[in-house]
């Protein structure tokens, strides 16, 4: 009844690999899975010897498998990397507590240093507080924007060279479809890249990100974690059932059932898309306020924070002309406050207790006089 592994032709098969449809035993599956990730790392030149790499750790299956495999391959193939775990606590009651406990256990199991940063620390607002103000719609926008930048800030603090995230093939296929449906060409170009940021073309300083699990199917990540008995926690974000991604996710899973190779095919198609050279693409630069990576004068996170602090939570969401005017007025105010900083005057917004980002801007000015 049970079929034989196509690889060793000795042991009984325990799973069907979705990529190839072939039956594998547990041990051959481990080897194949790990070797494919190794080949991805080598072929794409993701790391260099001596680099410090922060693994974005959430306690979920993807980041747990990523941490496990990165440590394993780093030792097996002598990459020469220093690995650290970096966790973000969004401040969602009942959601992050247990997963952070899992990351703390991973810290011990894998013997890797761990840093935990909270939204409250970084932005002054936890997600629970944001949802009270914003409601169930749109709060994923806040969380996603804050989370992404939180990793950048954490990486800067830790002084690491790269950030590794646990995005898998299913995640990337979803993102490609979402960006196609939204007609977002700029993101479409970025979301298929296995390593983003750190281009030599620009002088902007920020920490590059890479996705070693880019070509790994979610089913294989789950089964790898299961057969290896890795300790991970899975739960549903209290607010995410309203997220747009859920619809695309369902569609991707339906496609996968019909034809498992569809996921890799979508990624391949996304990689092949070419944008006309005369299309205007947004330029990458630093935010005027917090100095982190941004494609606009003021980054999205600062716009959202300003909206929250001012009692205008819709600021930065949608394209309402009225809100755009308010944003313009705010920018004018911002310029005035920057010029006041040049005079080294201490205004109310720059007091010690304030979470205003002018403070960081002020530090930059004092550190690097023009």
């Amino acid at each position, binding site marked *: 009844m049970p079929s034989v592994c196509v690889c060793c032709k000795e042991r009984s*098969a325990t799973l*069907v690999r979705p990529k190839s449809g072939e*039956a594998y035993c547990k041990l051959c599956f481990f080897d194949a899975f790990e070797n494919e990730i190794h080949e991805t790392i080598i072929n794409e030149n993701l790391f260099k010897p001596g680099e410090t790499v922060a693994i974005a750790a959430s306690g979920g299956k993807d980041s747990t498998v990523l941490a496990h495999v990165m440590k394993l391959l780093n030792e097996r193939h002598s990459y020469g990397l220093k690995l650290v775990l970096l966790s973000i606590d969004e401040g969602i009651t009942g959601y992050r507590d247990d997963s952070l406990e899992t990351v703390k256990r991973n810290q011990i199991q894998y013997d890797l240093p761990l840093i935990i940063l909270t939204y409250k620390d970084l932005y002054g607002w936890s997600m629970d507080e944001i949802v009270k103000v914003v409601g169930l719609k749109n709060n994923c926008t806040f969380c996603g924007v804050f989370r992404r930048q939180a990793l950048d800030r954490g990486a800067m603090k830790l002084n690491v060279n790269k950030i590794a995230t646990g995005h898998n093939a299913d995640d990337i296929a979803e993102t490609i479809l979402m960006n196609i449906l939204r007609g977002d060409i700029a993101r479409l170009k970025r979301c298929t890249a296995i390593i983003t940021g750190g281009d030599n073309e620009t002088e902007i300083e920020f920490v590059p990100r890479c996705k070693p699990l880019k070509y790994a199917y979610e089913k294989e990540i789950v089964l790898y974690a299961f057969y290896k008995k890795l300790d991970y926690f*899975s*739960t*549903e974000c209290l607010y995410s059932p309203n997220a747009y991604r859920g619809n695309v*996710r369902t569609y991707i*899973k339906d496609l*996968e059932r019909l034809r498992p190779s569809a996921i890799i095919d979508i990624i391949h198609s996304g990689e092949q898309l070419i944008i006309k050279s005369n299309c205007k693409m947004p330029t990458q630069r630093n935010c005027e306020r917090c100095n982190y990576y941004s494609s606009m004068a003021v980054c999205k996170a600062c716009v959202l924070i300003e909206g929250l602090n001012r009692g205008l939570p819709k600021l930065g969401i949608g394209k309402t002309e009225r809100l755009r005017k308010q944003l313009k007025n705010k920018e004018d105010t911002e310029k005035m406050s920057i010029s006041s900083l040049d005079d080294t005057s201490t205004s109310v917004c720059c007091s010690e207790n304030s979470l205003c980002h002018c403070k960081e801007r002020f530090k930059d000015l004092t550190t690097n006089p023009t």
Partner: protein
Amino acid sequence: MTTSSLKADENCSDGDDNNLHLIIEFTGGAELLFDKKKIHHVKLPLFISDNNKTDNNTNNKKQWTIRTLLVWIRNNLLKERPELFIQGDSVRPGILVLINDVDWELLGDLNYELKQNDNVLFVSTLHGG
């Protein structure tokens, strides 16, 4: 007992010889739909009686399969939002099924015939965020 109720529940006290014992597990977030309980020990009648047959003379006994087990799970264990777990005859795409730690795709999917003390594991990959 020579006759058992079709809807045996987890605490059925029937003799062991007349029951099919299974361990059903839900992980990956799927347990949220089942009273947040990951492991369920269930006793089922050894065979499914098909009383709807027009031929009343024949006592048809059918083996439990994953397909019929899913019907039972929906009726007896699923506490909320069945559409998050069941789709048509089968589990929703994105939910992996392992029988005694083996991928159900190797064992016949919905048509696998359950045996005594089988362990059926449902792992959801649909939760995220």
